[in-house]
Structures are given as structure tokens and as C-alpha cells.
């Protein structure tokens, strides 16, 4: 276990002219991340992802809870934790006026890497940054900056890397490219904890994940297992009387959900169940305006656990 955290909590208090406000950003989070895993923290904006990662990275002291990170106690030995950590913040932390090479060499020196220039050249080559390594940070594209940010966190070859929303703001091609590079880390044995609000990212990249909402873990498991827990397939129907239709289809479904005029029917083996559903609707003279059959996604898991869609929070892909 590279991260073993229990009951992490953090409440922020902000004072303004309107008075004191408290935000319970994280309300009791447990995380168990195995060595070599790519572990995801999926959740909408404000769910508490960054706060959780900052606590595990020794930047914020938790109000409650305990954690062992990379073999050391988070509260008793934060210095030892920091030595074994790579941390890439949501903001990135790439300097504008200095070159990537100078920044990475400096990071290597702070970590007492034996050959800072050599280690820097290696990590630059690994992330295809050699050509742009000697240009000021401000001239880099968003995708290049992201890669520099990750190289900055990896130059000392830490056993554990934190990536806070690594692909936010990147175009699809750059995202896929970055996913490949993160997968390569798994081959090198680096454990990765990454946060994201992209459903497809969590699904494609993570060995295991937790879904967080309002500072709580609402689900945990492998992407496949989480989805199977809900159903194999989702039939999405649009019709005038969704409630009556839901009642009609209930016997054939694992679960049904009604949102306005949309009815979602969760079924196993959707291809074979679909004709049955259509026949049942026909018998009850329920007129359809549209129908779709899809594989269940992590959004369906989120919906099942929270009653809201991650897409509706305006944060999804």
C-alpha cells in the first residue's frame, strides 16, 4: 500500500465583511492505493479533490484523520513524505521567464539527485521536450507546459506521483497523448494518484478509483466493477408518460430512473432485452419519441449514487 488514508477531514473558514463562512471541503475520506496502481479521484468541481491531494502532499494539515503516504506517517514525518513524492498541482507551477531545463535542473538539485543535468536530460527526452527545453516557459503551448509540469514532478524518480487534474484544458489529442505517458509510468512501477472530472479519463486510465461528491467518497472500485454494479447497459427513452413507462418496464430492469421526460432503464444484456421492452411499451400504448441503447458509464454510477449526473454539474467531458 503506497497510500493508506483514513477519515481525512478539512473544513475551511473564510472571513469576509459578510461574516464568517465555513466550507466542509473534505468530510471523512478513506483511500487505499496499492503500489504501482494508477488510482483516480473522480468528482465534480468543488468535490474536494484538490483539498484531498493537498492534504496527502503535506501542504494542508488535515483537521482529522490519519494517513501513511509512501511508507511514512503524514503527520509525524511530513519531511520524509515529501522526499518520496512528486506533486503536480492543478496550476502546474511552470515558471514563465525561465527555461524548462533550468527549472528541472533546479528541482533535481533540491531533491539532491546525484546527476541533476543527466536526470533532467532523461526526463526531458522521455516527455518529448528536448527541442523546447531551452525556450522560456511563457512561449510553451498548454500541452507542452503540462508535460514540463509533470517532468518537474518526476525528475527525482519518486515512487509516488500526484497529478491534480492533469488534462484539464487540453485538446482531445493532447489528452490521449498524456494518457499514454501516464500509462508508461505504470510500467516503470511508479504509483499515480490523479484527480479528474472527466468520466472517460477515469474510465480509460485508472486501475481503480473513488468517486467523490461534497467531500465524501460515494463509490470505490475498478471502473468495470463500478459500472457492472449499476448494469451492463442503459436504455434511454424519451416519451410523454415516463412514470407510467417506468412502472411498465420495472420487471425487466435492474433499475429505472426518471428525469423530466427522460426515462433510463438499467438492464443486463441490452441487445436481447430491448425487443422485450419495446413490446411491453407497445402493449401499454406508450408512444416513444426516441430510444437509445448504450453501455453503462461512470456517469451512470455517479447518477445512481448521488441522484445527479456528473454531466449536469457542467464538469464532464
Amino acid at each position, binding site marked *: 500500500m503506497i497510500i493508506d488514508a483514513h477519515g481525512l477531514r478539512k473544513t*475551511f473558514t473564510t472571513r469576509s465583511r459578510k461574516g464568517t463562512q465555513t466550507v466542509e471541503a473534505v468530510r471523512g475520506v478513506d483511500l487505499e492505493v496499492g503500489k504501482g496502481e494508477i488510482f483516480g479521484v473522480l468528482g465534480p468541481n468543488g468535490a474536494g479533490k484538490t483539498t484531498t491531494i*493537498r492534504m496527502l*502532499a*503535506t*501542504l*494542508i*494539515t488535515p483537521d482529522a484523520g490519519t494517513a501513511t503516504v509512501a511508507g511514512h506517517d503524514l503527520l509525524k514525518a511530513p*519531511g520524509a513524505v*515529501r*522526499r518520496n*513524492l512528486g*506533486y*503536480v*498541482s*492543478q*496550476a*502546474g*507551477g*511552470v*515558471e*514563465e*521567464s*525561465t527555461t524548462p531545463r*533550468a527549472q528541472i535542473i*533546479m*528541482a533535481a*538539485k*533540491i*531533491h*539532491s539527485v546525484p546527476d541533476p543535468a543527466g536526470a533532467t536530460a532523461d526526463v526531458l527526452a522521455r516527455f518529448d521536450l528536448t527541442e523546447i527545453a531551452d525556450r522560456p516557459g511563457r512561449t510553451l503551448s498548454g500541452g507542452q507546459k503540462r508535460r514540463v509540469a509533470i517532468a*518537474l*514532478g518526476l525528475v527525482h524518480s519518486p515512487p509516488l506521483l500526484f497529478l491534480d487534474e492533469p488534462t484539464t484544458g487540453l485538446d482531445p489529442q493532447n489528452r490521449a497523448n498524456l494518457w499514454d505517458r501516464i500509462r508508461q509510468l505504470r510500467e516503470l512501477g511508479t504509483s499515480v494518484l490523479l484527480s479528474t472530472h472527466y468520466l472517460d479519463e477515469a474510465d480509460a486510465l485508472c486501475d481503480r478509483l473513488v468517486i467523490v461528491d461534497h467531500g465524501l467518497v460515494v463509490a470505490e472500485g475498478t471502473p468495470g466493477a463500478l459500472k457492472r454494479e449499476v448494469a451492463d447497459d442503459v436504455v434511454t427513452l424519451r416519451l410523454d408518460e415516463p412514470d407510467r413507462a417506468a412502472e411498465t418496464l420495472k420487471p425487466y430492469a435492474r433499475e429505472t430512473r426518471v428525469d423530466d421526460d427522460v426515462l433510463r432503464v438499467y438492464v443486463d444484456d441490452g441487445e436481447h432485452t430491448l425487443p422485450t421492452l419495446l413490446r411491453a411499451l407497445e402493449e401499454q400504448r406508450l408512444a416513444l419519441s426516441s430510444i437509445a441503447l448504450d453501455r453503462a458509464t461512470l456517469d451512470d454510477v455517479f447518477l445512481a449514487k448521488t441522484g445527479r449526473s456528473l454531466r449536469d454539474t457542467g464538469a464532464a467531458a
Partner: protein
Amino acid sequence: MIRHTLLFLVYELRNTFRNPIWPLFGIVQPVVYLLLFGPLVAGAAGQPISAQLTSFAPGMLVITALFGAIGVGYGMLYELRSGVLERIAVSPAWRPSIVLGRTLRDGVVLMLQSVVVIVIALVMGMRASLPGLAIMVVLIAVTGLFSSGIGYGLALSLRDENGMAQIMQFFALPVMLLSGALLPMTLAPEWMRKVAVFNPMYHPVVAGRALFAGNLTDVSIPIAFAVMLVLATLTVTWSVRSLRRIAG
């Protein structure tokens, strides 16, 4: 500990020299005062400019140190926003070295700025004691640690450009006028002279005048060093402590 402080100092110095916008910007104001205000003071006093500069130039060095705090504060806010500080904070670097390295850089930069301002004053005809000039550069460096401490402390505890700008705007002008940097406090009424003593920046200005004039045994010199060393220790400690709450 010292290793990390030196690492940051060297790294930051290199960055500053690669892109010396702030340090150059920092000497524009004192140099403009030297060129366009110094002659007025000399004219009002009926003195030749070369004699007047000996008492006018020290104030310009103190102004450089005073306004340096603003640039320093904005630099820190930028590092806070861009995640640079957060990144460094999650490293084995000894935490105080992050601020100390930058503060020392500011001291070095200020010494170089002072040398430039002094050279310009000399070119304008200023006569001054050479050992006095050297001691003044050291005194200004200590003054710079004091004002950098304020800049970093404000940036790290307010974390807000507007709030920081308002506070600095509010204090900078009265502190400058009450330091006697522009017009000496000997021209001021009794009450102003009494208030000025409580203005930290008043002391290096008075000591600077004595140093430039070659009165190296003047009592104002040890007083200025003592005041500035104590205040610099306080503000630098404050700024290092403010770093603790960097992300929370």
C-alpha cells in the same frame, strides 16, 4: 539548510539577471528624482548641485529599498498563483530557505541598484566619502531585507493583489515624506520631526547623509544599523512564518 538557501539564492539571482525588468524599473524613480528634483532642492537652498547631492542622494537609495518591497510582493503573488510556490513547498527544501533565498537575492539586487544610483550621482558631480559610500551600501542592503520581509509577508498573508496594492499605496507616500528623503526633516516643524523618529526609513536617511559627508563616527550610523537589523529580523521572520499557510 544553508545549502538550500544558497541554491535558491543562486537560482533566483540568475533568473533576475536574465530578465532584469523589476530591478531596472526600481531605479527609474530614484534616478528621476536625482535628475529632476535634486536640482530644484539645490536651487531652493542656493547651493551648487554637486554639494546638494551629498545630502540628497542617500535618500534616493532609501527610496529604492522602500519601493522595492512592492515589486517583491507582486513577484511572490505571481509565484503563488502559478503554483510555483506550491511545487517547491512539496519538496525536501528546508521551508524557510524558500523565502530566505529570495530575501537575500533582494539584498544583493538592492546593493547593485545602489551602486548604479551612486555612480549616476557621482557623474552628476556628487562628492562623497568612499568608505562612507561602502558602509551605506551595506546599510541599504539591511534596509532592503526589512522591506522585502514586508513585501513577502503581505503577499503571503493577504494573497490578494488589490489588498496588497491598497496597503502599500497607503503607507508608501507618508513613509517616504516622513523619512526626509526628499527634503530633510531639519526643515520640518517640531511635531513632524517627533513623528519622523518613529518612521523606520528616517534612520537610514539620516545615517546616509552622515556617511556620504564622511562623518563616520556620527551616532546616527549605529542607531540606523541597530534599528534596521532588529526590524529586518522581525519582518523576515514574519514572512517565513506566513509561508506556512501557503496552500491552506
